[in-house]
C-alpha cells in the first residue's frame, strides 16, 4: 500500500529542488542593488504606512462568522455528494431540507442588512425597519 504514496515524497523533493534551483539561478544572475525603497514591504504599489500590527476593522468579523456557517455546510455536503448515487431520493430530500434551513438563515442575514458593508444602524421601530414594528394591537403597559 505504501507504493500508492510514493509520488508524494517524489513530488515534495522535486518541488523543493525546483524552487531552490530557481532561487539559486536568480541569485547568480540578478544584480543586487539594495535600497530602502526596495526593502520595504509591497503594499499594492502604495507607500508603506504605519505598523502591520493594527487591529482589523471589526466588520471583517461579521463577514467571517457568516462565512464559517456556509463553509461547514460544504463539509457536510461533500460526503453526501460522494455517496449520492447509492442513497437515492430520500437523501436528496433530506439535503434539500438541510439547505432550506440554511437558506432561511441566509435570507434573514440578507434582509437585516448584515451583508452590506455599511449597515444602517437604526433604532427599534424607525428607519427602514419601521414597518417591522407596526402599531401593536395588544400592548399592555
Amino acid at each position: 500500500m505504501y507504493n500508492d504514496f510514493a509520488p508524494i515524497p517524489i513530488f515534495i523533493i522535486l518541488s523543493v529542488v525546483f524552487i531552490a534551483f530557481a532561487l539559486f539561478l536568480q541569485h547568480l544572475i540578478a544584480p543586487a542593488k539594495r535600497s530602502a525603497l526596495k526593502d520595504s514591504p509591497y503594499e499594492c504599489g502604495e507607500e508603506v504606512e504605519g505598523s502591520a500590527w493594527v487591529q482589523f476593522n471589526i466588520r471583517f468579523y461579521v463577514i467571517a462568522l457568516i462565512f464559517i456557517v456556509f463553509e461547514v455546510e460544504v463539509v457536510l455536503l461533500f460526503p453526501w455528494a460522494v455517496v449520492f448515487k447509492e442513497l437515492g431520493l430520500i437523501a436528496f430530500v433530506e439535503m434539500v431540507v438541510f439547505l432550506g434551513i440554511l437558506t432561511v438563515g441566509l435570507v434573514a442575514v440578507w434582509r437585516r442588512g448584515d451583508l452590506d458593508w455599511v449597515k444602517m444602524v437604526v433604532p427599534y421601530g424607525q428607519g427602514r425597519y419601521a414597518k417591522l414594528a407596526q402599531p401593536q394591537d395588544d400592548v399592555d403597559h
Partner: protein
Amino acid sequence: MVVPLHHIIAISGLLFTIGVVGVLFRRSAIIVFMSVEIMLNAVNLAFVAFSRYHGSVDGQVFVFFIMTLAAAEVAVGLAIIIALYRNLRTADLSEIHELKH
C-alpha cells in the same frame, strides 16, 4: 508502518490538555476560544482513531457533527465578543467584570 492506537490517543489527550490549560490561563477571549477549538479537535482526532480501530464509521460521522457545532459556537461566540467589544472596547476577560463574583 501503522501508527498504534495508543500513540494517537496520547496525542489527542495531550492536545486536549493544551486546550484546557489555554482556557484556564489565557485572558483574551479570542485565544480562549481558540483553546476550546483545540479541545474539540483533540476529540475529533480521538474519534477518527477509534473509528479506524473499530472499523466502523460512527466515529467519523460524529466528527462531522462536532465540526458543525464548533462552527456554530464560533459564530455565536464571535458575535457576542463583537457586541461586547462595541460596548466596552476590550476583549480582555480580566477587564470584563460588570458582574461581581
